[in-house]
């Protein structure tokens, strides 16, 4: 298990043994390598273009300027639109919030049905779902385009929300099924004896006990949907592009002079939401990926 840290007994070894030097030395070097890109992103975004052209990407800014951030947020151009990443940010918010709520609502009920109300054939669907999680999205992209076009949702926000619900379903259903299966079955049986039905038990007994798993699911989905690029680029139109797609268009656009500081500010802005969630959630994030991955 991913154990909480903290002292686990004293170590009688000397602090500066060669063993410790090797362990901590390696860890510090690797940690340094992992932190460099974040550091470079931040310092680049705080420099002016003249300083970037002259200097070294690793050197701290001589003169801190927040102009690149303002420009990235409010006036950077993608194609003809020059209202910056703010458009993509709000699109991503409008996409992420309903997608997270809808996908979790659907998957939690699915997981509950699979855990407590097994019906004939349920496991066949579940197996297909889990196997489906490994199928490359590319093979299902076009049929979904046709379906969405036929029901008039292609290119709309609602269409993309449906897509996120579909592709979030395998992992979330697995997560909830495993969680509900692990709850004491006596509770469920007692409620059944008292005559409670499917929805009653779910809303009044299961939900109040499953706050932690909902938090894990929210973390998983917010970062996953916020970071999505493929579905955004396939199922939305330029004016509803999510932030990742718009970021890529800003940075990799071929016209104009490259403004590396603005690009890096835009990159940090896009990474900020998942990073904040990651640093704020700590262990829960780890638990989410471990629960999703190890049992997958």
């Amino acid at each position, binding site marked *: *298990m*991913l154990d909480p840290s903290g002292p686990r007994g004293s170590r009688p070894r000397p602090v500066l043994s060669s063993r410790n030097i090797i362990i*901590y030395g*390696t*860890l510090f070097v*690797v*940690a340094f390598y*992992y*932190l460099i*890109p974040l550091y*470079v*992103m931040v310092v680049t975004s705080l420099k002016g273009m003249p300083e970037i052209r002259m200097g*070294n*990407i*690793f050197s701290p800014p001589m003169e801190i300027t927040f102009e690149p951030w303002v420009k990235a947020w409010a006036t950077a151009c993608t194609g003809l639109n020059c209202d910056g990443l703010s458009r993509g940010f709000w699109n991503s918010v409008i996409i992420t919030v309903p997608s997270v709520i809808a996908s979790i609502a659907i998957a939690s009920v*699915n997981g*509950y*049905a699979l855990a407590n*109300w*097994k*019906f*004939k054939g*349920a496991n066949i*669907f579940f197996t*297909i*779902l889990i196997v*489906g999680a*490994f*199928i*490359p*999205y*590319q*093979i*299902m992209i*076009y*049929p*979904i385009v046709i*379906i969405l076009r036929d029901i008039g949702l292609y290119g709309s926000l609602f269409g993309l929300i449906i897509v996120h619900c*579909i592709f979030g*379903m395998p992992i979330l259903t697995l997560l909830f099924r495993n969680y509900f299966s692990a709850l004491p079955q006596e509770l469920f049986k007692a409620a059944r004896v008292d005559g409670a*039905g*499917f929805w009653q038990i779910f809303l009044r007994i299961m939900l109040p006990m499953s706050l932690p798993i909902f938090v894990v699911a929210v973390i998983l989905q917010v970062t996953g949907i916020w*970071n*999505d*690029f493929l579905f955004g680029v396939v199922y939305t139109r330029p004016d509803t592009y999510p932030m*990742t797609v718009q970021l890529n268009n800003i*940075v990799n656009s071929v016209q104009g002079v490259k403004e590396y500081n603005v*690009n890096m500010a835009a*990159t940090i802005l*896009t*990474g900020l939401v*998942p990073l904040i969630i990651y*640093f704020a959630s*700590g262990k829960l*994030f*780890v638990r989410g*990926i*471990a629960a999703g*991955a*190890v049992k997958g």
Partner: protein
Amino acid sequence: MSSAGKRPSQLTRNLSAKIASIPMMLTALVIFVGGTAWTVFYSFTNSRLLPRLNFVGFNQYERLWAAPRWNVAVENLAIYGVLMLIFSLLIGFVLAALMDQKIRFEDTFRTIFLYPFALSFIVTGLVWQWLLNPDFGVQAVVRSLGWTSFTFDPLYDQRIVIYGILIAALWQGTGLVMCLMLAGLRGIDEDIWKAARVDGIPTWRTYVQIIIPMMRPVFITTLVIIAASIVKVYDLVVAQTSGGPGISSEVPAKYVYDYMFHAQNLGQGFAASTMMLLSVIIIVIPWAYLEFGGRKHA
């Protein structure tokens, strides 16, 4: 409502649960099975702008494997895939083993190793595009220190561009492998370590001969997760190189997207995505057999 009577009919039994499972059934049948079958089916047609039922046999596949771009993409994926598997498992395991030595600041180290995993491939690709920029990035910095002939510009060199992408992918993904491995190591009984110590077996041999074989399930699961993500690699390439220089960093997923939505050659896109599916089947089937075939899962 659900069953109240003694012998309810087969259909209305658990009716609420069935209704609640409709989204799952639809997703499984219509999208996962239906969508996949549809694409495979249409890969045998000569659909261009719109899907058409004009069958041409294996023509699309012949053209696919004759296309230089597809061959470059497959070759890139093979190099990237093999190296990604080896290095992420190796680095991930070594980091996990180091983290498992009852070290201080374990949480801090884990937070640092795992944060790139929270970032999207687009962000990852753009950061590394900047770091590997030959005029400003690592190459320029080393040159400015006096080593003027130093060359390190993977993103601008056709022969090594895939390694530039690999560097970024490893930065993003090894944290996850480390976490999975650490969870595996923590699951191993402390007594095994004690027994090995009593027998005087050196630490590295305990790892190689006892611990790693014991962690086989963790390795297999991790392997499958990495492998499935390798086949899907797309955003990273789009952000970092857009497939360039030329076509030298193309990958299959990008080939599919470009042919479906830009080149208006759906048949090629369908054939290419079917090939991707085939490669995943080759990976997943043996694993699923090992994991679920041998013993019953709860």
